[in-house]
């Protein structure tokens, strides 16, 4: 059997490629996508981050009547280093905002954020100087769950929505092995700043 050196090619699936070796590489990558997504979506460990009354509903979601361990998220972690998803349960005060951002930064990639309840998502009734008008001004939010507080079923629905989002993920672009340049970073920060400004 002739010896052949195989190369793993990471490219966009729409790019035309020559040679069977490269095609095989792509097939492996796509099926890995599904596997990784499936694994990540079904073991979302939430971070214990209750800020107000929504945390009570979050606790009852974890309790036996609603039981999020059916979806693989029963392991509430007290440290951000072991958590996958941050459930912001409650109003975020301006004093809490730096801590929230720090905890988010300490979580390992990949990480997701669920904004639970009206106060965390938009400020709710607390349209005043003390409360951040939406946690998405501080961290990127993946799923918003409205309600005051959302019932455990509504939160479970939010978690299922997040799982759907994770399962749809494609890795072709994520696995690009190109170091980020200074230009990329400045463009990204400009986009986030624009997004923050649009909220007002």
């Amino acid at each position, binding site marked *: 059997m002739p010896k052949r050196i195989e190369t793993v090619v990471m490219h966009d699936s729409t790019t035309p490629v020559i040679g069977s070796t490269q095609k095989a590489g792509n097939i492996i990558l796509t099926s890995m996508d599904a596997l990784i997504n499936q694994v990540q979506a079904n073991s979302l460990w939430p971070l214990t981050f209750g800020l107000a009354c929504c945390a009570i509903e979050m606790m009852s979601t974890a309790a036996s009547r609603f039981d999020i361990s059916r979806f693989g998220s029963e392991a509430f972690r007290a440290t951000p280093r072991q958590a996958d998803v941050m459930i912001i349960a409650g109003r975020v005060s301006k004093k809490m905002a730096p801590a929230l951002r720090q905890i988010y930064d300490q979580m390992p990639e990949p990480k997701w954020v669920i904004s639970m309840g009206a106060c965390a998502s938009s400020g709710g009734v607390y349209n005043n100087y003390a409360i951040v008008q939406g946690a998405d001004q501080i961290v990127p939010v993946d799923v*918003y769950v409205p309600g005051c507080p959302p019932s455990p079923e509504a939160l479970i629905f939010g978690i299922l929505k997040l799982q759907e989002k994770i399962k749809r993920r494609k890795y072709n672009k994520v696995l690009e092995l190109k170091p980020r340049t200074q230009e990329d970073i400045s463009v990204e920060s400009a986009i986030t700043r624009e997004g923050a400004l649009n909220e007002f």
Partner: protein
Amino acid sequence: MSFDLISGVVKPLITGFGITAKRLARKKVTVQYPEKRREQYDRTRWRHALVRHDDGLEKCIGCSLCAGACPAKCIYVEAEDNTDENRFSPGERYAVRYEINMIRCIFCGLCQEACPTGAIVLKKDFELANYKREQFIYTKKMLLESKRPE
């Protein structure tokens, strides 16, 4: 050191597993949510709906009392006059725009209490979670119930 096998090992085991055995016989408490739903309570308040009269006209008259009663200020109403050719509600005016910011709403039901015609009702549909902020501005088209088939 003396060690009694009966009182030190067997008895605690029987008591401990006895509790497990008793629990096994009980009714299961978990609600299997996405497959089965529990019955919501009578006064559960979730997603709003704008209802119609029996003849198909909208109940909402665009008076903005709901917007005034709302503690979160999440309702926006813009009213316009009815004409004989273009009649939406039995009264003088109707709501041309009716928007609710679902993400700010706290589902307190004060809009329902304030409404003089009973046009806005809080239903029991709780599956509102979504990905983008913009998707939470519910317009009149989304809130208004469809006409009943004649």
